[in-house]
Structures are given as structure tokens and as C-alpha cells.
């Protein structure tokens, strides 16, 4: 009997749930310190840049209107936080469980297949991401940055953003030999993308070619979906944005699964 292709269709069932529950149980023990760590940094950045730099920048032109810089930054940086929280969990934490603690090996001796473990890790990272961004959103409300009712719609979008970046990160998790590898992912991939996706300044400032390319980055699509909701407006291209994020998520999940199967095959 020959081994099957690593790229065969995912074989998923509800067996991901106990794996997700396992992560939840660990996190519950450390939730408060972990939450403080997760939201403190993005909020410090927001306050420092938003109010500090915002004094210099003043208003930012957005479509046909102008908005205060802090509002512009808040609506972009919440997407960045969703991306970072999901990436961090699906890289460092998942790698600890997969490679260092061998938790996945233990689980696979029970009737849970690798596909469901990868799905559980993906959903877990997305859950942590939405938990973090909800908390940040709460602080933004408390600071009075925006009270737009459309913000309620930002929550499902932020979950989708978390899912997308969890899937992408799991590709790199599958390829990693050690933690050092993730530094490259953050510094060479995520950080440049943050600057190209209109989080800190409008993409109109970018030179032509780069601007065209940046339009198809997942974080750009995320920001363009979420930012109008801070202004009580609708996204300009909602369907396109959702489809691009969903395509990134599905394609990346499949690739992550295939590469993880390859890793565990030998």
C-alpha cells in the first residue's frame, strides 16, 4: 500500500473540538497576564502614535472626507493586532505544542488525526486573535475614538482576519526548524506588509507599482473592510475583500496541512 498524497483533501470532523478545548484550558490558567501582554503593546502604539503623531498630522484625507489621524490609525491598527495575535499564537505557541512539548504526537496516539489538530490550532489562534481585538476595541470605545454602530460588524470581520493569518502562519509553523525562523516571518513579511497596507498612512502615498501590488495583500483587504466601519460607512468593495481573505485562508490552510502532513510523515 503506497502512502497517500500530502495534498489530498482535508479529512475533518468534530474531533478538533477536544484539542481546542485543551488549549482553552491551558490559557484559562494564564488568561489575565496573557491578555495584558496582548493588548498593552497595540494600545501603547495607538496612543503614542495616534495622539503624538496625530498632533503633527492632524486630519487624514479618506475618500471624500477627512478624519482625525487617531481614527485612521485605530481602524488600521486593530487589523494589525488581529494579524499579530493570530500569527504569534499559530507560530510560537503552536510550535511549542507541536515540536517542543510533543503534544501533537500524544494526541495522535488517540483517535484524532493530524488534520483535525491543525484545524484546532488554526481556530484556536483565530479565537485568541478575536479575544484580543475585542478587548482592544473595548478600550478604543472607552477612549471615545469611535462610537459608530457599524463597529458591531467589525467583530466577524476581525475573526475572519484572525482565521486568514492563522492559516498563513501555520504554513511557516510546518516549515520551522526552530523559533528563530519566525523572526524572519515577522520582520521580512508581516512588518513590511503593515507599512504597505495602509495601517499607518494612506496607500495613496505609495509609488504606483508598489501600490498596485499592495492592493492584493491580505492586510490591505482587511483594513479596507474594517476602516469604513469605524466611520459608520460601508466598505467600498465588501464582496471582493471577503473573497480575497477567504481565498488566502483556504489556500493557506490547505498548504499548511499538506506541509504539516509531510513533516509528520517521516
Amino acid at each position, binding site marked *: 500500500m503506497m502512502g497517500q498524497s500530502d495534498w489530498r483533501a482535508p479529512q475533518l470532523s468534530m*474531533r478538533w473540538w477536544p484539542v481546542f*478545548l485543551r488549549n482553552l*484550558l491551558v490559557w484559562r490558567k494564564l488568561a489575565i497576564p496573557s491578555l495584558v501582554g496582548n493588548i498593552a503593546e497595540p494600545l501603547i502604539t495607538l496612543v503614542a502614535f495616534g495622539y503624538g503623531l496625530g498632533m503633527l498630522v492632524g486630519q487624514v484625507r479618506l475618500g471624500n472626507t477627512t478624519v482625525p489621524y487617531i481614527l485612521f490609525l485605530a481602524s488600521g491598527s486593530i487589523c494589525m493586532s488581529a494579524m499579530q495575535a493570530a500569527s504569534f499564537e499559530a507560530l510560537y505557541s503552536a510550535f511549542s505544542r507541536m515540536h517542543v512539548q510533543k503534544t501533537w504526537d*500524544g494526541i*495522535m496516539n*488517540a483517535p484524532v*488525526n493530524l488534520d483535525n489538530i491543525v484545524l484546532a490550532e488554526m481556530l484556536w489562534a483565530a479565537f485568541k486573535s478575536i479575544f484580543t481585538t475585542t478587548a482592544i476595541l473595548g478600550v478604543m470605545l472607552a477612549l471615545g475614538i469611535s462610537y459608530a454602530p457599524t463597529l458591531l460588524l467589525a467583530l466577524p470581520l476581525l475573526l475572519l482576519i484572525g482565521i486568514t493569518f492563522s492559516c498563513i502562519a501555520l504554513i511557516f509553523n510546518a516549515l520551522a526548524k526552530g523559533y528563530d525562523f519566525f523572526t524572519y516571518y515577522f520582520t521580512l513579511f508581516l512588518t513590511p506588509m503593515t507599512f504597505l497596507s495602509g495601517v499607518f498612512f494612506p496607500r495613496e502615498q505609495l509609488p504606483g507599482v508598489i501600490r498596485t501590488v499592495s492592493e492584493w495583500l491580505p492586510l490591505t483587504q482587511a483594513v479596507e473592510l474594517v476602516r469604513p466601519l469605524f466611520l459608520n460607512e460601508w466598505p467600498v468593495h465588501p464582496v471582493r475583500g471577503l473573497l480575497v481573505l477567504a481565498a488566502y485562508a483556504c489556500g493557506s490552510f490547505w498548504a499548511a496541512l499538506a506541509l504539516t502532513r509531510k513533516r509528520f510523515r*517521516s
Partner: protein
Amino acid sequence: MTPPLFEASHLCKTYGSTKVVDDLSFLIAPGECLGVIGPNGAGKTTTIRMGLGLTAPDSGSIHALGLEMPRDALAIKAQLGVVSQFDTLDPDFSCAENLLVYGRYFGLKDAVIRERIPRLLEFAALTHKANAKPGELSGGMKRRLSLARALVNDPKLLILDEPTTGLDPQARHLMWERLQVLLQQGKSILLTTHFMDEAERLCKRLLVLDHGHKIAEGTPRDLIAKHLEPDVVEVFGVGALALVDSPLKAMAARVETSGETAFFYTQQAKPLLDALAAYPGLRTLHRPANLEDLFLKLTGRQIREDA
């Protein structure tokens, strides 16, 4: 005759250009403990991985509990208990939580698992450590927790990959005693080990592997009787090696040397021991042939590269 609980037929597995497992067939009868022994790199762990559906064999088949691997891997694993070579306990959970979380992977209801936890902890002699985390446990306690965890689904067959490696004698004996209890309860066990006394004590039958081949199979007693002379006289001290070329050689069926020691394998030790009395400078040890002798005879005395 009852059908075997587990049956592997003509398994082959190649990694790169190395044949790790080569045409290996064996079966485990219900209630039986089958031991798999062999030097490092003999193919023991790969065989277990194929048995668990974690690696697909290049050819050959595995049937277990009336099902087929890897097609029915999850249904088979629902009835297996596995203790792997390295502990995969959750460091953030207490002993009791480790059992609870692991039971959930089998789809067991929390109430069912919680009812089993006290008995499992008692079986593992860890009742007093129910709330301790693995980091606070000794090596033996961790292995026993791994064993308790493998029993959470009340499995029919246990697969134990070197369950006592790295344990002190007390912890090892406690582990053996627990495994004996499980065998008396009617569980079946597939055990790999490097300890010949462990294999002799626990296993009804043994499989000796080397370079992926099965080189011998049988009960420990039969294997020793078939391959070895009943008595061994070990001689060590200055001049021991010279005896190999002396008339004493004729008193033994076979002579081996290792380092500064000569091993005389013989049907009758008395004449040899009498003759050795003429060499007061040498120390001798007379003992019955054991599994270790068998293992070394079949697989050689040289150190394996990956040992």
C-alpha cells in the same frame, strides 16, 4: 482458535535508500504480551509507528481488532493505549487534568472520565499527586502517569515503546508489577524494550529484530534453549583472553570474548570449572544462559553507530 488481536503481514518500509523494516510479519493473540527486542535502528519504533497508522508501510498490511490499518486508523486507535518512548504529558496540567483532557480525545464524556480518574491515579500510585504537574514528578511517576493516560479509554491492546528506559530499579519494578496486573486483567501488550530481564519477565513471546528483519521468534525459554548452551562461564582477569587458545576451549561448545572477558558457553560447566581452579589469578562467574546472551549472539557485540 481465537483470531489474533493484531496481525502484521509482510511489512516493508524504506527511508531514502535504507530498508528500515523488511518483510516483517507477526501477530499478537488476545491476552498475550509480545516483546520486540533489537538494537537501536532495528526498526522497532518504525514498526510501532506503522501499527499506529502514523507512517504508511510501503507494502504489507496490518489488521487489528477486526479492522484494517491505516483505513480504520481512528477506529483502531479508539481501542488502543499507547505509551510512547518520550513522555508527551501536558506540562501545564495536573495529573488529573492530564487524564481528563486525554480522555476527551477519545470522545469520552467528562462524567465518564472523571469517574475513572481516581482509579487510574490509584493504579499509577499517584493518588497523592493528583494536583501536581508533570514537572513536579519523578521519572518513574511520569511514566506511570503516561501509562494511566494510555488506560483512560479502557483499551484492549497496549502499545508500550520502551516504557522503563531511564527509570531506577524501584520505579522499574513498580512498572513491571503494574503491567503484570494489566496482563492478569486480560489486556494484550506489545512491548519494545532494551532490558532483557524486562522482556523475560513480562513477555510470553519475543520477536528479535535486526536491520529491519525478524531474526528469531518464540518464547524466551524456547529461544534460549534453541540458540544457546545452558551454562555460561565468564572468566575475567589478566590472562583470561589467552584461555581462548588453550585446551580449555575444547570444554566449551562456543567461546566469545568481549573486552577482557572470555565467555564459555557449555553443556556441562563442571569440568571447565574444575580446570579453571588451576588459574587462581582469574575470576570466574558461572550462571545459566539468559536472554542477554541470546540477544548478543543473534545481533552481535559491536556497538551500533546510532547507539
